[in-house]
């Protein structure tokens, strides 16, 4: 057990000494601060009147030029995950360090566990610190303290972010285990990210439109079209993550954004904010899948790594 801590500490030190960490931190901070600036400009219109969740608007309000913080997060978390995972194992192998380290009296999984934990910790520090900084700026500027419910929602948001980052980190660690070259592992991970994030929605749309014509006037057809598109795009964890954080951070109507809405339904709906319990029930499936994916990715890398023969050539 101590060896996990040793590896963990060394990896953390590595991360915090690396330029990639500084670049990512700067990127996230700049994105966070600029989106907060935009949010503060526009929060008065978004959080009109009696809104109960003024504080959450800090994270969900965007402007014409810059998007909201959560949009940035949806974009950046996979990048952080990939950057902190893609060379975890193969670079150690290539540098000849892995053989040396594994010849020390440690369990082999200490290395991969310590690395994964260090990556997750670094990711958590980045995300948590910027969320707190935004909260501090928000508190200072809008003078509205978050309710305990909002605080809970923010913590759940951070939690989901970390697991989502964990998924991408697990995936890129998997590639770092099975691929010799770091260039190959990062490119594969990024290709998958680009596919899931940008191409899958297009493909989903195309398939849905091929199955059910989008021009169809029938409501049933439109619902079917939407359902097909939505089911396909839900293959992507990025879709699930987006849904989860929107539902969590937009208590009023956030959960309605991801299902077909019939006009008849809308007209009879009273847009009341969901309670945190309700919101959690809504995001539960997404949350479970994200957590499961993170665990599965890591578990596969773990198993492969444990069985792998480490040669120093």
């Amino acid at each position, binding site marked *: 057990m101590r060896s996990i801590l040793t590896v963990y500490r060394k990896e953390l030190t590595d991360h915090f000494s690396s330029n990639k960490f500084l670049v990512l931190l700067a990127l996230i901070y700049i994105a966070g601060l600029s989106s907060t600036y935009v949010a503060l400009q526009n929060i008065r219109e978004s*959080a009109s009147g009696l809104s109960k969740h003024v504080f959450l608007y800090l994270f969900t309000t965007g402007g014409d030029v810059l998007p909201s913080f959560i949009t940035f997060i949806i974009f950046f978390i996979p990048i952080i995950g990939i950057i902190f995972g893609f060379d975890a194992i193969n670079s150690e192998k290539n540098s000849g360090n892995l053989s040396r380290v594994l010849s020390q009296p440690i369990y082999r999984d200490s290395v991969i566990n310590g690395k994964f934990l260090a990556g997750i910790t670094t990711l958590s520090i980045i995300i948590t610190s910027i969320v707190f900084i935004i909260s501090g700026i928000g508190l200072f500027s809008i*003078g509205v303290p978050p309710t305990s419910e909002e605080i809970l929602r923010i913590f759940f948001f951070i939690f989901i972010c970390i697991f989502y980052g964990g998924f991408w980190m697990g995936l890129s660690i998997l590639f770092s285990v099975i691929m010799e070259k770091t260039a190959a592992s990062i490119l594969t991970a990024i290709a998958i990210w680009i596919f899931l994030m940008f191409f899958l929605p297009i493909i989903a749309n195309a398939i849905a439109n091929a199955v059910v014509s989008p021009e169809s006037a029938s409501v049933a057809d439109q619902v079917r079209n939407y359902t097909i598109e939505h089911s396909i795009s839900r293959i992507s964890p990025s879709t699930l993550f987006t849904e989860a954080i929107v539902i969590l951070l937009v208590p009023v109507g956030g959960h309605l954004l991801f299902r077909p809405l019939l006009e008849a339904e809308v007209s009879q709906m009273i847009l009341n904010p969901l309670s945190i319990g309700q919101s959690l029930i809504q995001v539960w499936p997404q949350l479970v899948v994200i957590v499961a994916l993170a665990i599965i990715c890591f578990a596969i890398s773990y198993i492969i790594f444990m069985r792998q023969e480490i040669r120093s050539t």
Partner: protein
Amino acid sequence: METIKRKLPVFFIILTLTLSIVLMIPGMLFAQEDEATEEEIVEPEPEELIFDTKLPKLQAKDGETFTFNFDVAYKAGDEPFGIEEGKSEKTFDITVDYPAGWIAAVASGSTEAPAINLKFNSRESLRLMAIPLVQQEPGEYELKATFKSAVEGDTLEGSIEFTAVITATYEISLTTKTGRLSTELTSGKDNHYKLILENKSSKSVENISLSSTEPEGWQVSFDKEKIESIEAGEKIEIDVTINPPEKTIAGDYMMTFRASSENSNDNIELRVTVETPTIWGIVGIGIIVVVIIGVAVIFARLGRR
């Protein structure tokens, strides 16, 4: 003439000119006939002054200027206009009778006219201007302009009467006690703010209700929702309680306060700045500082630089 010219479109002038030429031709023909029958002396019709006005009665608030427009014509019998005789032009003195505390005069164009030359058989547009100089009780005031021939021995005279009705003025004004139109508020708290209601009119104003327009969710109340009566010239201090909800985002908001009675109202726009409660400002900065120190400490402890 000027006023008519100004008022009538060009084609009207042309029409009038054409018509008068057409009408003049038979007139000239008759004149030739007259010359022919010079011997027959026609008993001259009595001269007269004809006044004409569309609005003999005007209503305004005390202190405002009344302007009565009228036409005056100097003619005899049904002699057609435009025929000149020996007495083709006559000067008339104009006197205006007005009540005490008023001043009134007849004006032609933009100048005051104590006397006027009128051509025989012609029409002149004039104005009577009347200004109440001192505060006047509401009511009706008679004004009379008299035109009297300036020719000695001539008794020709005519007059026109007007009525100036002064309505009661009700004017209330709403101002802030400080005179500034902005203030700071703290959210989640009753903020007191003083407005001044003043009756600027000459009479007391009854039944004034106070209202406000505020951002959604704000609570605004007045210490007196209704003011039964406010004497002329009286000032009343109104205490407004403004309670922006706890969740109000700090920043500037516009509010409108309105005082309205049956016949007078006033409103005032107030820019209110909701300030971040100091505690949250401190907590906010505290969080930022703690996070930055935290990250810095992690850097210092873990970084290899």
